[in-house]
């Protein structure tokens, strides 16, 4: 196991270096530079002098070709030094820290909701397989699965924020808090945050719901054909115990993989959805940093997303061993 982990670690580090190298190359070759997009540059009265621009170019490392600048970045990143954001003049780490909570707020809520709803629904569709109620539910879920989340987001905004404006059904259009959030009582603040979360969480959840439900059903259908299920039936166990104890437990392995693969999504947020809801999360930060050519922020985020993707895969592989004693990496 240890040698396996060591090998995975080195392959992972190599992969990370290659990914960041490719992305760094792309980012540096984007037309425009952080200097053009800086609002200070647009203002003629505050136009910095040539010497200032030269100084900024040097500080940003723009005078060096990108493959040299990459190794400077890599060296800094290795000592956990991610630099300052060009556009917001703050350490990148602080920026990311600010954004993690709103993103987690959405992704974790939606993940918990998905599991809470999808597992019973999946078991239900397994038990009632082929019956009209199962067909109806599966059909509905399939439609939802194909319904693009950003279209749903716009429709929901139109209905709840515009059409129901000034009625008791009104929900906020975007953002994670109202502008007068700080003046509210603590109960009011909680309510305010909650109402802001309803629409984004709905959009995050409904598509995944269908996917997870089908996932549970597909795995359950494979398991309930096994001999040991027939044996359990033959020895007179109740259907609930067979379903949960004998069948569902054996579908946990694919579930664990799925959990590992959702890990990067928890923090990376959804760029399009966060953009639509103006949610101050990681996805929005990334999108903003592309627009302003904010190299340090983009690179730090890319590195973080990639590490999470690799960690998720590794986690899934390791959890396999714990869930299924038949697998070992020795």
């Amino acid at each position: 196991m240890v040698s396996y982990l060591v090998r995975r670690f080195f392959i992972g580090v190599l992969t990370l270096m290659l990914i960041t190298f490719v992305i760094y190359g792309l980012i540096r070759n984007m037309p425009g530079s952080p200097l053009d997009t800086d609002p200070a540059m647009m203002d003629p009265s505050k136009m910095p002098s040539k010497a200032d621009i030269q100084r900024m170019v040097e500080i940003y490392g723009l005078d060096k070709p990108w493959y040299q600048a990459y190794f400077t970045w890599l060296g800094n990143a290795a000592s956990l030094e991610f630099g300052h954001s060009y556009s917001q003049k703050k350490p990148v780490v602080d920026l990311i820290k600010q954004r993690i909570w709103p993103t987690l707020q959405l992704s974790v809520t939606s993940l918990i909701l998905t599991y809470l709803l999808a597992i019973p629904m999946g078991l239900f569709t397994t038990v009632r397989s082929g019956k009209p109620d199962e067909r109806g539910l599966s059909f509905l879920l399939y439609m939802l699965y194909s319904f693009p989340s950003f279209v749903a987001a716009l429709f929901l905004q139109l209905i709840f924020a515009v059409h129901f404006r000034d009625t008791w059904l009104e929900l906020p259009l975007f953002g994670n808090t109202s502008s007068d959030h700080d003046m509210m009582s603590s109960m009011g603040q909680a309510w305010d945050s909650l109402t802001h979360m309803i629409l984004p969480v709905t959009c995050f959840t409904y598509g995944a719901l269908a996917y997870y439900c089908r996932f549970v059903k597909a795995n359950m259908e494979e398991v309930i054909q096994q001999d040991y299920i027939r044996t359990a039936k033959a020895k007179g166990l109740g259907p609930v115990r067979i379903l949960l104890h004998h069948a569902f437990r054996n579908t946990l392995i694919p579930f664990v993989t799925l959990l590992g693969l959702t890990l990067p999504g928890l923090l990376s947020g959804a760029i399009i959805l966060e953009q639509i809801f103006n949610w101050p999360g990681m996805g929005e930060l990334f999108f903003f940093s592309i627009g302003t050519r904010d190299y340090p922020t983009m690179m730090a985020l890319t590195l973080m997303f990639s590490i999470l993707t690799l960690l998720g895969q590794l986690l899934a592989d390791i959890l396999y061993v714990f869930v299924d004693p038949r697998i070992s990496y020795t």
Partner: protein
Amino acid sequence: MSDSADTKTTPSPGFWREAWQRYRRRRLSMFALYFIGLLSLVAICSPMIAGTKPIVCKYKGNIYFPCMGYFNTNWENPIFQKDRFRRVYPRNLKRKDPQSWAIWPLVYQDPYRPVRSNEWGNGEAGNPFGSDGRPSRTNWFGTYKTGYDIFASMVHGTKIALLVGFVSTGIAAILGIAVGAFAGYVGGWVDIVLSRIIELVMCMPSLVLILALIAVIDQPTIWHMMIVLGLTGWTSMARLTRAEFLKLRESEFVAAARCLGVSRRRIIFRHILPNALAPVMVPIAFGIAAAILIEAGLSLLGFGAPPPNPSWGTVLNSGKETLQSGYYWQLLFPGIAIFLTVLAYNLIGEGIQESTDPRLADPKN
């Protein structure tokens, strides 16, 4: 071929034929296939459905097909430019040649410009916009921006939606199958290197990569976007093809072919590839759905086709920008179109999955 007049044998149906028969029994998947066929028809005939240029017209003694200008601006006869039509045909045809006649598209609306008042010379009103742009008899799906017709934009945008799906997934499939086949067949260190590359691309956050690639291009067109989507979406197909090739490489019929002295190229293309294609068909269908989604999503973020190009995502984006005014028609129609197309491709993918799955290929169904 030996002469076998007496022994009549019916050849057992091939794999694809059987799969097709199973596919045909799935009503929803067949319906989805018809829907995509209908969309293709709309895309091909778009200038005949909605446009402001006559399909056929007789002008100064000659027959012209000005609607071809929607496919390619050079296919519109230069005589109309020389005669200063300024893209307004109805009034000018009548005025400049009273003998002329024309067959008009089904809907007189243009995806590239709002129809202005008095284009027919009858003093009729031009396209309304803003809150007046709701669906009406002249603008079936309403208007967006400064009076652009949504129906015309969506009819012409069908072409883009279908092309994005086909071209980007086509690129991805060719790349994926080639890499996967090469890695799987050659094996050894080639396989190790290619597998690492596949994993590398898989680990890159896809939207990050797509946004970075598109931002690199100075003036991205829809074709650039298709290439970018193709370059980022090939990994799952490569992995599946590789796995199939690894498996089939060791099978008896390949060994037999090798013993017969069949060339390596023939083994790969004639013997292994057709047998390895079935599992790859599924990610192709789902890939088309994903490509359409990403294109619309990128348009929504403002990374899409530049404004004069009508695409479903562009209309949706305009609806997003005017959301607070409640112009529901700018969201409803493109949203439903994207949804139905994605649904259709998902159903097709599912149909292929079920009908090519050898485990489900028992004779009882």
